[in-house]
Every structure is written in C-alpha cells, then in structure tokens.
C-alpha cells in the first residue's frame, strides 16, 4: 500500500479521447454536489473537450478533488405506506464531471483485457444472464452424458456491494493493473463521504470507509475485479459461473458419496475465501440441487461446518428454474401462470389501443416475458407437452394482437399473417441473433458461441436463416433481459 505515492506516472489524457468517450455518456438531468447536470457536461465536452484536459491530467498527478468524493443520497419511495423507512430505496448522485473522468479510467482498464476472469458474465460486452445460464446448462448436460451426478449450489451474499474493502481490493489487483491507473483507483476509493438529502434538507457529512462507490461508473467493474480470484481459490474440477454477485458453483462425481465430500470441501473453501475478503455469507440460505438421470432424489441435508444445507428438486438461476432432470416442466408451468395473468390484463387494453399498437405491446410485453432465455430451455428436442402449453398461450396472444376475440381466424391463417408465429421459430431467431452478435465481435468466438452452434445445428446456414427471419418488433430484444 505504502509503495504507491501520488505524483509518479501521468496518464496523458487527450482531448480526442475525452470527446470520443463523452459521446457515450447518457444525457441525464440529475445533479450531484456541484449542481451541474450530466447533459450539460456532455454537451460542453463534445463542443470543447479541451476544457477538461488540464484538470483531468492534474487529477492523475495530484489527486482527485474532494468535492468529487461527496455523494448525495436521496430516498426513493418503492411501494407500500410512506411512513416506514423500509419502503424507501436510497440512490446516490455524484458530481457529473467526475463521471466523465471515471469513464476515461474505465476505458483504460478495459483496454488491458479480461481481468475479472472468464467465469464472470456481469457488466461485460456480449455477455448477459442468458450466456451465464447457457454455460451452466452446458456443463451439467455434458457431465450427465458421462453418467455422472452433478451438484450445484448458489451462495447468498448479503449487501455484497457495500462491503468492499479498499485495502484488500488494491492487494488483489496489484499485479494486474499498471501503476498510473493503480494510483488513481487508490485515490478514488479512499476518503469518501456522503450526505442525505430529504426534500431539500441536507444532513451532516459522514465518512464512508467501506464499500464500492454507489452510483459511479467504475463501481461495478471494481466489484467484479474484487471477486476475480474466486475461481483460483477453489479446486480445479469445480465449475464456476457468476453474474455480478450471484455465483453458481457445481461439481460432479460418479458416486453420491464422492460428490458430497467434494461439495462440502468446496463449500468450506468458498466460505473461508469470502470471509477473508470481508463478505458476509449466509450458509443456511444456500440452495443446493443434485442433477441426475434417475428420478430418485437424495433429500438428506449436508453438514457444512456447523450449518445444515438441505438439497431441493429445483434451482433458481437468474430468473429461470432448473429441474433436477433438466426437463423444464416447472419452468413452463410458471411461464404459463405468468403469461395467462398478463393476457387477461392486455385484453382490457384493446379498448384504447389500435391494432398496430396492440401488436407491439403483445410482442414486447407478452412474448418478451414468455421467451426470456428461451435459448436455454426451449429447443427442437423439447417435449410435446411443453410445446403444446406454449402454443396455446402463444396463439391466444396473437389473437389479442389483432383483436380477434371470437376465434374467427384459424392457426394457419395466423401463421400467414405473422411470419414468425410458432414458438420454436422464436427460439431459433433468438439463438441466431445471439450467436451472430458474439461471432461478429470476436474472431474465434467465446466458448458459448460453440454451444449455440451445436444447439442450432446450423453452422453455415446461420447467416442466411437469420436474415430471412424478420422480427415482428425490434424492441423485443431490448426488453428481453429486463422482463423478470
């Protein structure tokens, strides 16, 4: 820690760099301590980026100004009665000039490569919740093909984002990041403070010694860097997938006894590692399931340290439920419940909204919810029952889209009107789009792309088939991930 002193290596930030990164900022109107909205900082930096060059370079040399380190916390009402504090959610506003500076530092860190490990899927380009789920599903399926039993567990971290300790963080990234950026990060995480603003009345300033910087651009990246050493601390056979603070660890074994032993070992190691970092874990809340070909499920609880962990038949992973035999029956029944509830409400909207609007609403809010992560749980090989359930809701949705409540049109007729009508075609479209996005970015393609390819059975036809499928609505893909 004491080796790094401010005032050594300049980062040489240029006007061109500022202008390039400022164009990516979101023009919001909320203000921090200085009272300047983000929109104005963006416009000024695009019009005249040289205003900020000298200030940013001197920030690298002699430290970030203290006014940038003060966060203003405001409570936002969620739901329920307004009297109790538990119904409010705090959000913090930072100075908007400092956010531009953070953006530059983040770009410098990203240029160094994938520092937070390949198991991390959160806050990254071309990665999403679906890619994380795909990787987990692929591991389980391949191990089951070898006649093995797989056990996966998810650990519950309480208030993970607020428990980051700067001194440990700097130790973990010491070797990965060059000195210039290191100094800035050290200065960025230290000597932080906050004020609370309720209807214009300010509280006293208080110091913050622990935690990621809430509301900042660098914050999420710092968190993923903080947990980057997780995979190396666990045994080699263990497979880890994580999305932000949700981590899913899975091991396999030929016998139940071997598997249980290895699971207990990894759990203990995992818990010990998290405690050294400073995270608070809740062992009694960890969820565990055994994936196997046989229908018989083991329900004897595991003894980990002083706590018991009880295995269950299903596992919730980032919004979808994995069955112990990968049949997806429980997930489809949940989807059916949700979608039928939504349809009842959307039919009511037909009074107000015209045909084109109705069509858009159905595609975004019904199909977007139904086919969330359909790449994972829906395929050409899925059972007749699941496809029948999906089809029944799907055609009901299409009928509400054209306000055809009296069932005048046949299914073939609906298929004619909507070019991409059947559920399987939707799945194909989503997979093709995901695969192409990944392949375009990386020349070789990440390991997930190969999974997708094998799932689709279309190695070379992928481009042509994708182009032939015309999406009903382009907004679908944006809301795909957020509708949970």
């Amino acid at each position, binding site marked *: 820690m004491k080796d790094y002193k401010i005032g050594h290596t300049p980062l040489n930030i240029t006007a061109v760099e500022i202008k390039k990164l400022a164009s990516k900022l979101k023009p919001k*109107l909320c203000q921090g301590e200085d009272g300047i909205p983000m929109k*104005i900082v963006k416009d*000024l930096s695009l*019009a005249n980026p040289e205003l900020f060059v*000298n200030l940013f370079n001197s920030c690298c040399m002699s430290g970030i100004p203290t006014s940038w380190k003060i966060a203003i916390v405001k409570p936002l009402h969620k739901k329920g009665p307004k009297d109790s504090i538990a119904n409010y959610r705090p959000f913090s506003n930072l100075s908007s000039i400092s956010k531009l500076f953070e953006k530059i530092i983040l770009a410098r860190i990203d240029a160094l490569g994938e520092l937070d490990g390949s198991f991390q899927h959160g806050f990254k380009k071309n990665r999403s919740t679906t890619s994380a789920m795909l990787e987990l599903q692929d591991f389980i399926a391949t191990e089951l093909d070898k006649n093995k039993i797989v056990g996966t567990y998810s650990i519950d971290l309480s208030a993970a984002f607020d428990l980051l300790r700067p001194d440990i963080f700097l130790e973990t990234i010491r070797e990965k990041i060059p000195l210039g950026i290191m100094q800035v990060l050290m200065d960025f995480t230290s000597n932080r403070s906050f004020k609370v603003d309720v209807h214009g009345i300010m509280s006293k300033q208080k110091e913050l010694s622990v935690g990621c910087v809430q509301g900042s651009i660098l914050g999420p990246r710092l968190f993923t860097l903080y947990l980057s050493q997780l995979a190396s601390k666990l045994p080699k056979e263990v497979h880890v997938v994580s999305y932000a603070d949700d981590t899913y660890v899975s091991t396999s074994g030929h016998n139940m006894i071997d598997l249980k032993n290895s699971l207990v070992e990894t759990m203990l190691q995992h818990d010990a590692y998290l405690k050294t970092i400073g995270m608070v874990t809740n062992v009694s809340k960890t969820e565990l399931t055994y994936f196997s070909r046989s229908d018989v499920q083991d329900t004897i609880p595991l003894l980990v340290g002083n706590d018991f962990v009880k295995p269950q038949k299903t596992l919730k992973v980032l919004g979808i439920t994995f069955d112990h035999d990968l049949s997806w029956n429980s997930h489809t029944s949940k989807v059916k419940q949700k979608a039928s509830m939504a349809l009842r409400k959307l039919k009511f909207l037909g009074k107000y909204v015209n045909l*084109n*609007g109705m069509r858009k609403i159905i595609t975004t809010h019904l199909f977007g919810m139904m086919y969330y992560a359909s790449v994972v749980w829906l395929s050409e090989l899925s059972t007749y029952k699941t496809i029948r359930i999906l089809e029944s809701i799907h055609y009901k949705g299409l009928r509400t889209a054209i306000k055809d409540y009296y069932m005048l049109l046949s299914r073939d007729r609906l298929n004619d009107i909507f070019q991409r009508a059947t559920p399987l075609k939707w799945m194909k479209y989503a997979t093709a789009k995901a695969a192409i996005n990944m392949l375009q970015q990386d020349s070789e393609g990440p390991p997930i792309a190969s999974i997708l390819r094998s799932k689709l059975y279309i190695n070379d036809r992928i481009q042509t088939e994708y182009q032939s499928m015309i999406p009903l609505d382009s907004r679908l893909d944006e809301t795909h991930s957020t509708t949970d």
Partner: protein
Amino acid sequence: MSRIAYWNCCGGIANKLNTAEHIAKIHNVEILFVFEADCSPQHSWIRIPGYRTEFTDTHIYGSKCRQIAFIKLTSPFLRSRSITVPSDLEGLVFETAKIRAVGVYRPFKPINDNTNASHFNKLIQTLTETAKTRKDICIGGDFNINFGKFSPEKENIETWALDHNIIQLVNEHTWERIIRNPVTSIPELKKSQLDLLFVNTDGKHTVLDKYTSDHKCLMFEFKSKTEQIIRQKAKRRNYAGYSPQTISNKVKMDIQNQSLTGDTDFDADLLTNVITDALDLYHPLRTIRMARATDVIDQDLERVKKQRKRLMKKYHKDPTEMLLSKIKHLNKLVKKQINSVKVQQLNLKLEGKNPRSFWNTVAELEGKRNEENLILNINNKTTTIFSFPRLNNCPEITK
C-alpha cells in the same frame, strides 16, 4: 438543408397517413402541407411519429379543415395567427425569424366565379405588408384556378397571369415563380388546375413523381444564410433554452483569464463555478429543469390557459355575464386539451422501455370506466384492419 413540401392528397388524409409519413420521413421534410385533407381538429389520431399536426382555424373557414400541416417536432417554425388568409382561401402560416412558409388552398368553385385573382391579390398584399421584405417567403398550394377551359386566350398560364396582374405583383416583390406549368398526373385535368410555388429565396425545387393522387408532390429546399440561425434556434428549443456552443465559448474565455493552478480542489471548484455562472448568464438552469418536468409541452394548452388567465383578471375587476360565459367556454377547451395531453403522456409510458411503468399504466387504465375520449395510438400511427396487407383478402374479417 431545410425542406418544405406541398401535397394534394385528393379526398381525405385518413387512409393516406402512411404515404404522408413516407414523404416526411424519407425526404426529411420540415413542414408538409396537405390539401383536401377533409378532417377536423377533433380527429386527434391524425399524426405522424416525430411530427405534430396543425389544423386550419375552424371558426374562420368552417367546421371542415381542407388543409392541414405536419411539422417536425424539432423544427424552428412556429405557427403565426396574426396573419389571416382571406376567408375564401384557406391558409396556414408558419414562420421563423427570417423565413415565412405559407400553404394556401382554394376550394373548388363554379367556372363563372371571377374572384380568384382579387383574393390572391389580397393574400399577397397582406403578406407583403406584414413582412415588409424582412423575411424570405415561400408560398405554395392548390389554387384551383379555372383557366383555359373555354376561352382560347387562357391556354397559356402566363397570359392568364398577365390578365390578372399576378406577374406584376410577383415582379414588384422580386419573387420568383418556380413551378411554371400545372402539375397533374391526369391529362384531362392538365389545363384546369394549377399548383404554384412563389419563392423569395435561392433554393432548389423538385417535383416528386412518386406520390401521385391527382396532383404531384412539390418540394422546395433552401440553404440560405438564415439556415444556421434556424438550426441554432431549433437546438435551443430542444434543450429548453440553452445552447452548448455559446456556453462552452464563455467558459473557455473565463478559464483563460483565470489560469489553472494545479491544485485540483481549487481547479475543480473554479470550473464548476465558471460553468454555473455561464449557464445562469445565458440560460438559467431553471428552464432546463422545467423541460424535464413536462415531457409533453403542448403549445395549444399553454395558449388557452394564458387566455383564460387574462379573462379571469378582467372578471375580478368588473364581473360581467359576457366574460363569465367566455371563461366557461375556455374551461371546456382547457379540459379537452388536458385530455389530449394525458393521452400523449400515456402513450409515452406505454411506448417506454421500462416494463414496470408499462404494467402500472395498464393497472391505472383498468380502474377507469368511462374513458371514451381517450384513444391511444402507439407511436401516433393509425391503423385499420385493412392496413395489414394479408388481412385484406381474409373473408372472415371483412364480415
């Protein structure tokens, strides 16, 4: 380049909104005048995404609007009601500080009527008197002037124009008549109707052959010295009263005077102070916040509210029954306008990317009962059953 287009849709805009959208979007038109629209201001669903619609004043020209105009939401053109087009001609006038765009439609009249030229004279006089050559002018429209039908003298437009002293008028005001021949697609009507464009500025004119009803679409694009000012003003309105270039220049000047020291605490405070000073000097931050509070700024609503305020003040001084009745009438108008603004805001919520806000609005709507006035159009697009191409042939639906 800013473009103004004139199009005769021939009998009702309701079915032809798609083509109007096509003209506006593909050619990036600032104002699109549409003639023979046959609608009324109550038809709030007549809209193009990204544009707002303006109807002719019903209290002057009658209940039916034969002319409407679509204006880009970001465009600097504002509707001016100070200039009244003669009541025989139906007109819409839009203007900026430097340019005035006028659309004129003359309803079809019997052949013996000879009041054409006199009304046209009146129009030109009113325009010139008010403009006083300060502004560039672009007049276009469907004048429905009957010429060349019976008498051989009127076969040529120019001779007809000479008869009615139009060319003189045009020459006096140094206007250029760009379209010299009638623009029609049907040969029988070729000599009976006349579309004209009178223009005061340098520019390029085109006849768009693609969009035909019984007339063709005319477009005028101009690039004058005033264009730069127009763009700046449009940007300012977009930001609700602030331009980044002027503020950045001011900040640069101030910072050069007070050179940076190297102490970042001091420098950061200095920069923020300079920026806030510049913002307060040119355009106060208050206006920017206002713009966010009301995402939909409705000009008509503000106008009616101002009128009502004025009358209320008068009424408090000396209350009369006349004023009371007027205020009551205005109250109704305000309610109507507020309803339309509500519709716009609901549309925004339904269109938005946030699913939570969408489901909240659905729940809101579910609670209401008598909402016949609310007709929501997502993306302001109107569609009928027949707008689905494949459904046209479907026998079950046509029943």
